[in-house]
């Protein structure tokens, strides 16, 4: 049967089901196929903290949103055009975000009285007319899967597990996606379970064939590849890119990578990933707690490794004292904070940007720490290398401040040429660095005149035996010092060292094509995509608006104040209550206006457009 083929510019699909239904996996596989097909894409996984929340309930709904297009896109899409709902809970949890006329692909098999009752449906929405404004495709995904697998020696329950592959097959047909990547994935995953492998492959094909033959779908869609710079691409999530960036940073410095970490959502994937790559000389240490994790990293840094600790906000709180130790020891260390909703346990699987001030100030005493924040999943790679570079060059702990959205979201990545990566020079001190009364001596805190960094001295280096610690040290000699003037000097020197990095980081990103905008929207971290989309839309509507974005949050790049003062209005959207706004206002006396929401989800472009329009109307 030949069906009409309709070409679309972009599509936003949301896969939603029970947390045990495999929606993340289905989304990942659809994404891989879409990436290889050549569309631009952005993903937004959204799942509960519970591993298996009570089946069929609203809190147990796990969703995966994918935006793909034939042109450059920067967000996961404000509202989905298609919802795949595996059960009544998935429908109910997501329906309010579906625009009129959207496609709903609904697994009718799960719409039993019991399941409807669980989520408070008194009538079956498939029958009561409440879905009339949508295009409903009622498909018995479970029963069709079981039927397709009847030749396999599987229990009904085992067969039902493949329904996500049936759904993937169906969606792959609907949007003309190839299924090769999913087949390769299944072949690898179930290599040792041939029966399960065959069943999943069959379910995938059955889903595709069902789409081709059923009358439920009269139209097949295609989204043409997006134009992109020439080169080799892959799809990558933020945590994966960040892990690779750490390995690359260590290679660039020619140092062994040492990770001390304690499992915490949403950072654990970095521990998992790095532990797979011991053949890069990577050592990973899963510690007994967050403090031991950074403690081990500090020990490794002292020993001359490129040391890293990975965590989320609650872990940073526990590590604070140790970060202060690294500040005063002036040792290189990368502290990765994958921010999540807080305070306390908060929203472990949701995104937020509310650790900025914790990273800036969350220590006792004056303890400045540079902060690097990636702006997109792929940018996590570059940001990780940058964090390593600053840590080693300036002998300081550095915060790498990512978030849950970047961590789990993904996008196409133009692969960098590894030969073009920056080199990082550890410059270990190998001999005494000072002459005192004609005698060669070691001054562990004699500073580089340009960077103010002290030497990095590895144990095992003869003649440089020395003792340092958390007690204030005399400048140059490093001996214990309680001298008031020396403490004042050291506090100022440590601050000046970090402040000086402003001239050694990339200038702040500014996009102002006409050069005469009155408004600038300033962001940091993962809001880059939504802000970029909102600025684009606003410009099409005639508003002159610029976008500025910070990767280095401490110090701010040297051009920051000058750029912000060019504009009449500075809007700062943040997923917090105005942390960057506060810093900007304090430092540059700029009348920055915050737009602040903490819903655990990235901004929608539309809501930012509203803000821009509102401000524009008052300029």
């Amino acid at each position, binding site marked *: 049967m030949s069906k009409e083929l309709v070409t679309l510019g972009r599509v936003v699909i949301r896969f939603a089901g029970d947390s045990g239904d495999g929606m993340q996996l289905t989304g990942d596989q659809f994404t891989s196929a879409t990436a290889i097909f050549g569309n631009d894409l952005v993903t937004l996984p959204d799942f509960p903290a519970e591993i298996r929340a009570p089946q069929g309930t609203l809190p147990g709904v796990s969703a995966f949103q994918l935006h793909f297009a034939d042109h450059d896109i920067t967000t996961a899409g404000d509202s989905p055009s298609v919802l795949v709902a595996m059960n009544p809970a998935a429908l109910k949890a997501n329906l309010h975000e579906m625009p009129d006329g959207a496609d709903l692909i609904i697994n009718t098999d799960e719409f039993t009285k019991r399941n409807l009752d669980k989520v408070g449906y008194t009538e079956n929405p498939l029958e009561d007319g409440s879905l009339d404004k949508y295009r409903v495709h009622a498909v018995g995904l479970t029963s069709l899967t079981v039927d397709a697998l009847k030749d396999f020696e599987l229990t009904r329950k085992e067969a039902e597990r493949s329904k996500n592959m049936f759904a993937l097959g169906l969606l792959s047909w609907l949007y003309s996606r190839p299924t090769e990547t999913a087949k390769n994935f299944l072949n690898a995953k179930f290599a040792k379970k041939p029966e399960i492998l065959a069943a999943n492959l069959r379910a995938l094909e059955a889903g595709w064939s069902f789409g081709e033959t059923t009358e439920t779908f009269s139209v097949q869609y295609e989204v043409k590849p997006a134009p992109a710079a020439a080169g080799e691409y892959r799809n990558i999530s933020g945590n994966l890119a960040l892990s690779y960036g750490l390995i690359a940073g260590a290679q660039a410095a020619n140092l062994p990578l040492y990770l001390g970490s304690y499992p915490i959502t949403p950072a654990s994937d970095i521990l998992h990933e790095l532990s797979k790559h011991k053949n890069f000389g990577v050592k990973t240490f899963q510690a007994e707690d967050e403090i*031991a994790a950074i403690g081990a990293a500090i020990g490794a840094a002292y020993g001359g490794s490129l040391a890293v600790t990975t965590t989320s906000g609650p872990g940073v709180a526990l590590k604070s004292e140790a970060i202060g*130790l690294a500040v005063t020891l002036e040792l290189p260390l990368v502290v990765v904070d994958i921010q999540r909703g807080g305070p306390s346990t908060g929203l472990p699987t949701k995104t937020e940007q509310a650790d900025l001030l914790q990273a800036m100030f969350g220590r006792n005493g004056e303890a400045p720490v540079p902060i690097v924040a990636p702006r997109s999943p792929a940018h996590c790679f570059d940001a990780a290398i940058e964090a390593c570079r600053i840590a080693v060059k300036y002998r300081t702990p550095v915060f790498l401040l990512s978030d849950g959205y970047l961590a789990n979201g993904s996008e196409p990545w133009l692969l960098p040429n590894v030969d073009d990566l920056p080199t990082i020079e550890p410059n270990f001190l190998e001999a005494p660095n000072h002459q005192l009364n004609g005698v060669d001596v070691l001054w562990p805190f004699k500073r580089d005149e340009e960077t103010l960094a002290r030497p990095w001295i590895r144990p095992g280096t003869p003649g440089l035996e020395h003792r340092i610690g958390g007690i204030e040290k005399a400048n140059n000699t490093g001996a214990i010092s309680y001298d008031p003037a020396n403490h004042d000097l050291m506090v100022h020197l440590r601050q000046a060292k970090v402040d000086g990095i402003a001239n050694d980081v990339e200038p702040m990103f500014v996009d102002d094509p006409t050069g005469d905008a009155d408004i600038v929207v300033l962001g940091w971290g993962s809001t880059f995509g939504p802000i970029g989309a909102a600025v684009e839309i606003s410009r099409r509507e005639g508003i002159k608006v610029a976008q500025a974005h910070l990767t280095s949050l401490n110090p701010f790049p040297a051009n920051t104040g000058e750029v912000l003062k060019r504009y009449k209005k500075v809007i700062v959207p943040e997923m917090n209550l105005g942390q960057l706004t506060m810093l900007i206002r304090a430092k540059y006396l700029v009348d920055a206006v915050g737009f602040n929401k903490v819903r655990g989800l990235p901004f929608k472009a539309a809501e930012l457009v509203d803000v821009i329009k509102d401000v524009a109307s008052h300029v």
Partner: protein
Amino acid sequence: MSETFASLRLVPKADAQQSGKDFKSDQEVRWCPGCGDYAILAGVQSFLPELGLKKENIVFVSGIGCSSRFPYYMNTYGLHSIHGRAPAIATGLSTSREDLSVWVVTGDGDALSIGGNHLIHALRRNVNLKILLFNNRIYGLTKGQYSPTSEIGKITKSTPMGSLDYPFNPVSVAIGAEASFVARTIDSDRKHLTETLRQAAAHEGTALVEIYQNCNIFNDGAWEPLKDSDSAEDLLIRLVHGEPITFGKDASHGVIRDADGSLKVAAAAEVGSDAFIVHDAHAADSSYAFALSRLSHPETLANTPIGVFRDVVRPVYDQQMSHQVEDAIKSRGAGDLAALIRGKDTWTVS
């Protein structure tokens, strides 16, 4: 010159004979006059030449407390860190640098209170650390509060009506935490201290040495009965591997195994000296060493064993960590960054 200990085989050897003086730093020692720490410092400095290691390959890591000033006085590498975290920091150092001999100096508050978690996990992992735990049953640096090893009812600045806390027995804690080497010695007994350090240094993996140490300012005489020549003989049980466990004048007492399998002290006159058990520090089952550690009385100090309670062979964490790296390189080849970031699914835009 020096023995070669298996635990230190990767640590470079010194080119020339060393003396205790080589390990004295130029820093003025700032413990209170009369502090037991002086004796331990002198003991360690005079013992280290025996190891014959390049002193630049020795690192002392400490936490916070009086004892934790120790690294400043050693002419080796030293890191004076933060309260309780020395075992964690030393773990990172030791597991990333097998060519170093890493020592941790800590106290009863540092190791057993704020840092209790790190201590037990270092012990169970069997990281190649030598941990010297100075136990004076008091907080000295904060000027005299009770510690996790203080006796019940102890009157201190923070417990004017007496401490309610039941004390830890550090040796019992360590054995319970799967330690592969646990010993106890006394600050003022140089010969015993040195012999204990020797055995600890030789041990592959974590060695915990509890050192009874006197704080003459805030808890003077805490261990006095064990030091006083009139009483010590009747209180101290000196453990020597392979020898019967006896004590008291003319070995009047010893340790026997009771009918229910537990250990208890008995008089030779009652049970006959043949009944005394022979100390086996290498016993695989830790319940034996644990039972030995329970003989002592926390208040009267009666039946206090010193020496090596337990010394068994277990895989060393540092070595295993390195082996995993070596195995990964052997089986998959040294990492290729370009191949790694490329992954399996790529596409090309021309």
